[in-house]
């Protein structure tokens, strides 16, 4: 739409530059953004209303699905409020396990973000590297909880799964590798010219504006706002854990990158403290299905910033009211400000830099008692399924190695009439001739 020398361009709700549905109407003068209108709500699923019609324990699973990435954040935030109303003393071991999963979730989220940020600025090598390394923490989460995302570890009164000494060993091993890799990412983020030049001065949010617009999480901390619910309003085991709140005063996307990579190191330190100091004892206490009348407000530092849940009970087994405020809603308002007078080309990375929430789906092929496709030779079967017994629950599960998955896929296509072996041979011969 043309209005004198300004153009209004609709971006979204479905647009290749966006990773989730949200609508922007951008007023442009040349390539410069003069202002914008944001339309949210395309993902509204009526979860708060749905919670009123379900029991607390059903709500716990529903709430865990508010977000695909910060699932543990939401379930913990909710369960804390319910436990406060019920007056439940959660066993210490459970609180430590919650903290442990929380930090592993932060690691998975921040590594995911670093990859997305790399992708948005055309640095896809960084995406490949970080998402490969993220698999380590995804495997740890699957090992401890049985799931890569939506861990289902929480229950009202504690956690559902204990941690064995053998699992602790595995976590230490994974964390050691991740620490090495993250040191490298800190080097990349702070020394790589491509990153520094592309991200510096982009998506600027001054400290005053961050405070004025109530930004939260790494977005606020990268503007020098020293706030972190884990330290300021401690929950789970955070009151007993030492860690630094990372802030930065670059006030731009570069600062947000630095904060997140440095927070990764803090998360590893918290994970190690949780494992070292993990108290002995039970992991859960029994809580009656009916929660006495009352109300509670719970806060939680999710990877993207402060989560707030309000729960009101009425003495039945279903809540009277559940309110959820996720960090993206707090930060999206700062985006408008960050993009004013900036270039249209900065939009994807500036939006990505607040780390808006979008669903993350399972990737792993999980085969239980599965036979290889017809035509796969008997001798290949053993290699085809590299068995990895993760927990006692999964002792019959078979997880494919990368090589096995590749072989399986080639064979599956060959059996179904798609065979590239001849073409591959032709290419190989051509290469050999050179």
């Amino acid at each position, binding site marked *: 739409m043309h209005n004198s020398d300004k153009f209004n361009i609709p971006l979204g709700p479905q647009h290749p530059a966006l990773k989730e549905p949200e609508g922007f109407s951008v007023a442009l003068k040349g390539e410069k953004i003069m202002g914008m*209108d*944001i*339309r*949210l*709500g395309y993902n*509204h699923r*009526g979860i*708060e*209303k749905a919670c009123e019609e379900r029991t607390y324990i059903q709500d716990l699973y529903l709430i865990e699905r508010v977000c695909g990435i910060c699932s543990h954040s939401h379930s913990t935030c909710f369960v804390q409020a319910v436990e*406060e109303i019920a007056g439940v003393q959660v066993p210490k071991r459970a609180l430590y396990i919650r903290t442990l999963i929380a930090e592993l979730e932060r690691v998975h989220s921040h590594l995911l973000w670093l990859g997305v940020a790399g992708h948005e600025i055309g640095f896809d090598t960084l995406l490949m590297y970080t998402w490969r390394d993220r698999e380590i923490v995804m495997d740890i989460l699957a090992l401890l909880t049985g799931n890569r995302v939506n861990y289902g570890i929480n229950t009202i009164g504690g956690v559902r799964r204990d941690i064995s000494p053998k699992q602790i060993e595995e976590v230490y091993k994974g964390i050691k590798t991740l620490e090495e890799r993250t040191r490298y990412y800190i080097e990349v983020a702070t020394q790589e010219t491509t990153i520094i030049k592309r991200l510096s001065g982009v998506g600027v949010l001054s400290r005053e504006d961050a*405070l*004025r*617009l*109530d*930004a939260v999480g790494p977005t606020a901390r990268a503007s020098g706002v*020293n*706030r972190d*619910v884990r*330290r*300021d*309003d*401690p929950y789970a085991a955070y009151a007993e854990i030492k860690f630094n709140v990372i802030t930065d005063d670059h006030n731009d996307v570069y600062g947000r990158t630095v904060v997140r990579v440095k927070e990764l190191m803090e998360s590893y330190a918290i994970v190690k403290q949780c494992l070292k100091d993990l108290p002995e004892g039970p992991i859960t206490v029994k809580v009656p299905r009916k929660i006495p009348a009352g*109300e*509670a*407000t719970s*806060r939680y530092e999710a990877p993207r910033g*402060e989560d*707030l849940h*309000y729960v*009101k009970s009425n003495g039945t087994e279903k809540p009277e*009211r559940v*309110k959820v*405020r996720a960090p993206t*809603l*707090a930060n*999206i*308002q*700062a985006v408008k400000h960050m993009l004013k007078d900036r270039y249209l080309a900065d939009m994807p990375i500036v939006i990505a830099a607040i780390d808006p929430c979008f669903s993350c789906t399972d990737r792993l092929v999980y085969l239980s008692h599965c036979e290889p496709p017809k035509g796969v030779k008997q001798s290949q079967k053993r290699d085809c399924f590299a068995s990895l017994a993760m927990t006692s629950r999964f002792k019959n599960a078979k997880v494919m190695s990368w090589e096995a998955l590749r072989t399986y896929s080639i064979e599956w296509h060959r059996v179904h009439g798609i065979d590239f072996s001849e073409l591959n041979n032709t290419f190989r011969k051509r290469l050999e001739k050179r």
Partner: protein
Amino acid sequence: MSKEEDIIQELINKFGYLEGAVKVQRPRRILLEIDYKNFREVFAFAVKELKFGHFCTITGLDEQDNLSFIYHLAQDSGILFNLKTSVSKANPVLETVIPFFPGAEIYEREVVDLFGAKVVGLPAGNRYPLTDDWPAGQYPLRKDWKQH
């Protein structure tokens, strides 16, 4: 005296009528239920004098004849001040808090859509979170609203 008690004392010193109305729900949680006619002055005092400088959100509640709204304000000390006020469901008018917190806009739009609050001073703009073709007068988080 704890930090929470200090805050309560300051509130009572300033507004005598709050005696007995403010309570500590648990460490770092203060709850105050207040008539809407006094809401504005207490809100302004909490923000400006008591340094509750971070606005978290607004929780709406359907309480039979009234709609209640809890304004969640946080301090850097980690204390959360839950300031609750009620207006009649027949005429649920609130004044915007955007002059204090520009970021409050989206939370006010949310209570407009989901509870049918009328927020005076809310600038024209996109609704949130319901669709543009959502039928008028349907407020899904009110208790009498059922999914059809």
